[in-house]
């Protein structure tokens, strides 16, 4: 059908590409050669799709363009473009196309329809780039969360019957779960009757963190092992008292060394210096 | 948006129905690959609520469903009784409160074990409690 304006854009592909790249240069969301290749491929595919879909804003051909676009936007994302710049990339295309449309067609009503279709298609694509950008970010974040929770709770066997777990970073409720699970499982696996929880690496202890610590100690005791909390820095002792947190039921020590000493006492062990 | 995929309904009228119910709930948890810890929390919560259902509601029915919210899968358990209902919900949800001869940590304790907890009750018209435990919750 000849009467669809968008379909006829294909004939002006080169002109469109030039206008588009001028616009991109003007708003600064371009980075040269790689992009030129991408843009060429994208424009060719999109114009083809527009040609074949003939005014339909939701065709199979456009789906293919979406796939390419997701690839382009993630590659742009890796090259450091913000999602805003990715959207501008498409908006610039829309502007360029719209400019060419007004050059080849003078009938306002036809022009209006074509522009409306163009907007629908490209706005859709802009949303798509945002979504794929967000999804990419979310994947990275969830992978990092998994990694952090795995590397951040190493349980160390410091002596026969004594395990230690240094906590580094903030202790929130999901982290507490992981800490508790790992600690208790290690207690069972090693048959250790004493666990030392070292909080030297915890930046601050508020009432919530204290509650998590108390829970961990209670769970350890329920299993039949004792739990010592070490690494209480002076500022932590101060905040604990100022906040009115009751840690009296818990054995607390300033350093890991003194916690270990306490553990030895409990196990009735003595460390002596050889003469 | 939470959507349910598979679903089943069990009638609970006597104590002996509790263990089969727990087992069914556990199977639902295992099916979606829930960790042992989350399974244990879910089954314990189920156990607490079904005990309430028997004691205060005089029995009722329990619906177990596999649910999904797009990001995570979970198990939803709904407890429906036609008992007398609960007079003061905020009081019943307070730690340490109990009318029966239990330890008084039924509802608030149970709430801490699951990710979502909803209770609807009307005097004389029974109580419906719905809980969801997400696989990674």
């Amino acid at each position, binding site marked *: 059908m000849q009467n669809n304006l968008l379909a006829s854009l294909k004939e002006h592909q080169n002109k469109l590409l030039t206008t588009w790249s001028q616009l991109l240069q003007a708003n600064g969301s371009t980075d040269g050669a790689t992009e030129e290749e991408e843009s060429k491929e994208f424009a060719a595919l999109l114009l083809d799709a527009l040609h074949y879909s003939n005014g339909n804003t939701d065709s199979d051909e456009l789906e293919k363009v979406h796939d390419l676009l997701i690839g382009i936007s993630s590659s742009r994302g890796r090259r450091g473009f913000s999602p805003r710049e990715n959207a501008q990339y498409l908006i610039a295309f829309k502007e360029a196309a719209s400019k060419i449309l007004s050059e080849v067609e003078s009938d306002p009503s036809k022009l209006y329809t074509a522009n409306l279709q163009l907007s629908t298609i490209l706005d859709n694509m802009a949303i798509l780039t945002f979504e794929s950008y967000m999804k990419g970010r979310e994947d990275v974040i969830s992978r990092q969360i998994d990694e952090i929770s795995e590397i951040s709770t190493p349980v160390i066997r410091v002596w026969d019957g004594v395990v230690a777990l240094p906590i580094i970073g903030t202790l929130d409720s999901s982290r507490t779960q992981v800490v508790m699970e790992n600690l208790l499982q290690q207690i069972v696996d090693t048959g250790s009757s004493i666990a030392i929880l070292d909080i030297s690496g915890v930046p601050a202890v508020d009432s919530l963190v204290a509650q998590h610590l108390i829970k961990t100690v209670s769970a350890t005791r*329920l299993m039949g092992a004792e739990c010592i909390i070490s690494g209480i820095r002076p500022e932590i002792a101060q905040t604990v008292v100022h906040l009115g947190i009751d840690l009296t039921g818990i054995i607390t020590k300033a350093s890991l060394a003194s916690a270990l000493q306490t553990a030895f006492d409990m196990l009735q062990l003595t460390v002596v210096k050889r003469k | 948006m939470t959507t349910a995929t598979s679903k089943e309904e069990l009638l609970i009228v006597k*104590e002996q129905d509790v*263990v089969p119910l727990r087992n069914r709930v556990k199977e639902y948890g295992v099916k979606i690959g829930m960790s042992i810890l989350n399974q*244990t929390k879910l089954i314990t919560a189920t156990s*607490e609520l079904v005990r309430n259902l028997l004691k205060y509601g005089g029995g009722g029915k329990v619906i177990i469903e596999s649910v999904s919210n797009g990001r995570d899968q979970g198990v939803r358990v709904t407890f429906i009784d036609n008992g007398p209902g609960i007079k003061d919900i905020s009081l019943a949800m307070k730690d340490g409160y109990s009318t029966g001869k239990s330890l008084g*940590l039924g509802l*608030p304790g149970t709430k801490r074990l699951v990710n979502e907890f909803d209770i609807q009750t009307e005097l004389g018209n029974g109580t419906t409690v719905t809980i969801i435990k997400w696989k990674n919750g």
Partner: protein
Amino acid sequence: MGDFLLVTIQVDLYDQLAENLESDLINTINKNNSKGVLIDISAVSIIDSFMGRILGNIAVMSKIMDAQTVVVGMQPAVAITLVELGLSLNGVISALNVEKGMDLLRAKMYNGDNEEQTYDDSNQ
């Protein structure tokens, strides 16, 4: 097992069974004049408030009859769940496994120690 009684719970109990366990156990303590009771719960996958109360009851009842109760082999997931639920099992002494539970009972009998403490921390 000498003065000690070892009870292994193999299945998840429903209420009536748990109550039966309570009375059976107390009667056996009386009959054998046992001085210590070990309850092995390593096969128990959940403890709810009812079950927790039964364990607490057994501990208190046996204590009045001059026998010490030690619960052994609690699963990590069960311990975490109990803590979240807010159940502290007051009065119940626990040990990691049967062996450590026996040691604990023996130590308690020789010391005549009636404190509800796993360890003597007088040197704190």
